[in-house]
């Protein structure tokens, strides 16, 4: 999935300051075991304060579009993983909180910071993200805009499928010193 060079999906839109307590409410992870039961709970409660039952609405491949500082707040990775389990192929936001962006890269999930995205697309419209041309297309309006390419390093981690995959490659290459 992470190596696809064109992502196309229907847009779900959110405003500024969507924090990790909205994306994955603290009581649903309750610092649990990260097992299937917890993942289900997080999925069923994702975004509940602003969009109840969101998991019933999102279709595989949909794209989440948000305003400023998406994913601010806690370090919790369940907030990143739940975007994957909701079915999203990417998040595109005016800006993305630092930890949320790093965590996305670390699990191999696409996260783009695109100033101007809010005006570029409305909820329900279809968005195409071209990762070779580094362009966005609003398929309903026929408009296009450029996006900033990933840095080489970020691209490599996402292409590998996340930072643990990079670690596995290094282990396989014998790069892990013994204690």
């Amino acid at each position, binding site marked *: 999935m992470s190596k696809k060079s064109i992502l196309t999906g229907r847009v779900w839109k959110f405003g500024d300051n969507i924090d990790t*307590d909205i994306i994955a409410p603290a009581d649903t992870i*309750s610092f649990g075991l990260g097992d299937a039961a917890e993942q289900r709970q997080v999925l069923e409660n994702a975004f509940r*304060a602003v969009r109840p039952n969101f998991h019933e609405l999102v279709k595989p491949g949909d794209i989440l579009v948000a305003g400023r*500082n998406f994913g601010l707040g806690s*370090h919790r990775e369940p907030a990143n993983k739940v975007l994957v389990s909701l079915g999203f192929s990417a998040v595109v936001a005016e800006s993305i909180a630092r930890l949320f962006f790093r965590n996305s890269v670390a699990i191999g999930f696409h996260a783009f910071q695109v100033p101007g995205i809010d005006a570029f697309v409305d909820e329900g419209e279809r968005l195409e993200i071209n990762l070779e041309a580094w362009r966005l297309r609003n398929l309903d309006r026929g408009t296009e805009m450029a996006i900033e390419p990933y840095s080489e390093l970020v691209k490599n981690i996402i292409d590998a499928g996340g*930072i*643990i995959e990079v670690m*596995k490659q290094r282990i396989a290459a014998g790069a892990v010193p013994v204690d």
Partner: protein
Amino acid sequence: MGMTVIEKIMARASGQPRVTPGQFIDARLDRIIAHEEFYRIHTAAVNNGIEGGLPRIFDRDRFHVVLEHFQPAIDEVQALRAVKMRELADRYQLRHFRDTLPGVLHRIVMEDYVLPGELALGSDSHSCAWGALNCAGTGMGEHELAFALVFGTLWFKVPETIKVVLDGQANPAIGSKDVALWLGGRYGTAFALYKSIEFTGAGAAAMSIEQRFALSAHAVELGGKFGLFDYDDKAAAFLDKRKALRDQLDGAVAVAADSDATYCQEVRIDLSTLEPQVAKPHTFENVVPVSSVVGTRIDQAVVGSCANGHVEDIETVARVVRGRKVHPRTRFLVQPASWAIWRECASRGLFDVLLDAGVQVLSPGCHVCLGMQGRLADGEVCLTSTTRNHRGRMGSSEAQVYLASPTTVAVSALAGVIEDPRGVVQ
């Protein structure tokens, strides 16, 4: 051209004479600290196909695990996770595994582990709090920490630095919390996105070390990656009480910015003009001067957290409530950040003052800050000096959480409504 504090630290950590903002580096880490997320760090490796978990730990003298968010456990899931953490501590032969004297991670590691001049990662977003001791601490997620723990290195993009210069003398009712809230209100939660903040100026130098803890902790609420102070006598005096790892302390090298360093932005705050600030629900940027919310009913008042659960914060509460009573319709919870704080407050009689006034003193930890205790019902209003007022964080998503300094919280708890502390505290 000179370098900022973080540029110098990242240059050293990546073995280069100098680095510039925007540059990607592979940095050697001085320290890694994990709380309960160590369990998820381990399972991130296992679930991604690394049998048995992490193949090694980069340095057992520089990796510390503190079991804190979960003690005392609030349910069986937490209790079970703690059991698994203890198994992992054995499995990885950890040298520093703190189990039975919990509190708030950041306070504990500032008491016992982190050092000036270090580049250190924590499994928690408020790890930037360590910047108060001139340690470049920042939070990371579990996948990245799994990588970092094995190799002792991680990628960074060298951040730009914002200089926040504090001048002037604040009204005694104003604390560093008000500075953090003012910055949130004025510049928003993306103020320092991907950036490092340096807090400097005469006002920063005059701040006590605990006031600095609050400001550094809130760097993340301002979007920041680091929130750094200069190392000085106050930091030295705090560190000098440390008993653990004295040899590491002796080897620490603090870092100061060059006088010709480049900053992407400079903000000057004249503390003498600052009013007490309050963040209304549900973001850290929804900030107003206290005067515009005076009279708002509060059902619960809280002083605690990595930002404001320190000795001085509790001292402030004691000063305000001494000989008076908490409003009969308001619950006032005080949660110290560590047992060391508890001991000091207890031995100085501060808890007696609080209890006489009808304040509930809770055992040290994060519980109230993130809604594991003291949860709010629909429509309830809480005024708190903890870190976040995100919708639903402290219970019902229909509850209203306001953030303010410990002084404002204490004064308001007596009144049962939000009150301007300037009339009360002189």
